[in-house]
């Protein structure tokens, strides 16, 4: 590798950026998010399906644990909650790029920047996952009991979790949609990438369950934000290459 190769490498990711372009980008993102919500609302089958998915998973957990009788211990409550959210997130995000038809994708390509597409998809998925997670939390707390002592911290953590799952899984679903066996790939690619995030989330929410002070979870929360930023930045840089195909 010579000097030229390194110099070439330097300008790969250089994206021309001015304040005007930033405003345009934000406007494009806004329209794309609106479009995604409108589509979702028009074909409510998918949305209802996801809500039912969360609800029935929670209920299955409730029934399986109530056979033994008695309350769930707090660590098990916590782990179960996050595993339910993990599977819901994988299922909900997976359809993001799969349901877009080829023709419609081509149409976007002529209209907007790829960065706008990925950021809009991330934002939309984050909002969708947040909604699903809050509904899930409500049902879950209703049937399995609510041992959380620090509700604001717990909900904030769920918010960060939805954002993190969305950032990681959106690019992964874009990658998986291009391959032949996309549903298997979604799990194979997504799960290992999400484990570090999941571990931090479980740790913070355990702190919230035990009613520890905010100080105890500050480092973990900061790391979560940093991880989200890394993954988001990498998605932003890489998506333009993904969408050329």
């Amino acid at each position, binding site marked *: 590798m010579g000097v030229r190769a390194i110099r070439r490498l330097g300008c790969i990711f250089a994206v021309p950026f001015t304040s005007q372009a930033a405003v345009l980008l934000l406007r494009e993102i806004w329209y794309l998010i609106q479009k995604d919500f409108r589509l979702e609302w028009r074909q409510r089958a998918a949305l209802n399906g996801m809500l039912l998915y969360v609800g029935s998973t929670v209920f299955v957990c409730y029934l399986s644990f109530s056979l033994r009788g008695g309350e769930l211990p707090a660590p098990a409550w916590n782990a179960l909650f996050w595993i339910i959210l993990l599977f819901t997130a994988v299922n909900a995000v997976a359809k993001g790029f799969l349901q877009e038809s080829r023709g419609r994708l081509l149409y976007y390509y002529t209209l907007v920047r790829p960065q706008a597409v990925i950021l809009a998809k991330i934002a939309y998925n984050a909002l969708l996952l947040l909604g699903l997670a809050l509904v899930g939390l409500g049902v879950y707390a209703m049937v399995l009991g609510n041992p959380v002592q620090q509700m604001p911290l717990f909900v904030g953590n769920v918010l960060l979790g939805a954002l993190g799952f969305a950032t990681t899984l959106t690019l992964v679903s874009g990658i998986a949609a291009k391959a032949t066996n996309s549903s298997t790939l979604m799990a194979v690619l997504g799960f290992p990438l999400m484990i570090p995030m999941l571990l931090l989330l479980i740790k913070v929410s355990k702190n919230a369950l035990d009613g520890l002070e905010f100080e105890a979870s500050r*480092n973990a929360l900061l790391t979560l934000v940093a991880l989200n930023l890394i993954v988001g930045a990498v998605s932003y840089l890489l998506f333009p290459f993904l969408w050329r195909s």
Partner: protein
Amino acid sequence: MKKNWWKALAVLLLLYTAVAGLLMPVPRLAILNETIRNLYFHVPMWFGMTIILTTSVVYSALYLRNPSARLDTKSHEFAKTGILMGLVGLATGSLWARFTWGTWWTSDPKLNGAAIAMLIYGAYLVLRSSFNDEQQRARISAIYNIFAFAAAMPLFYILPRLTDSLHPGAGGNPAFARYDLDSDMRMVFYPAVIGWTLLGLWLSQLSVRTSLLKQKMYEKQLA
């Protein structure tokens, strides 16, 4: 010969590592005893793996800039060598843990982080094998390679430092900076790092060549 001096250097350094690493005196420490010599074999694996995986990511980025089958082959073969070194690192670490901690595997952030990172790279190999179109496979695996690197490196170098760990060099446990104030061990450790890394480069170079030759033979058959 002018071009191949580094291969001779790799052989010499590794011979030196094997002989000096097993025979030179080491600090006498309780529990660790002679297993401290694993420093010359286990730790260089991770150094080498990081360097080789970084090379693979650079090739992937160059591929995205300027697609060619050659760059794709290079990034793939370097990633495979990196994964191999990571697996050897896990194996040597596990063996060491058996004699020091009394167990092959324990739930430690550093160990789990390394295992998850290996899973992430395992997914890279699965991803590669699930495309029919060669160009699409090349581009998408280049994208995933960069993504995986960004996700895996914090697992090795950042997340374990934030929590307590049994592993030497973390959570107040001594690492080699504290064992060998007489710096005897550094005399073997640094050559070992360079030697193992050069061996990894050599391995990747050979597998890149084999792979390119195979592609050429395939093209000839088609023609």
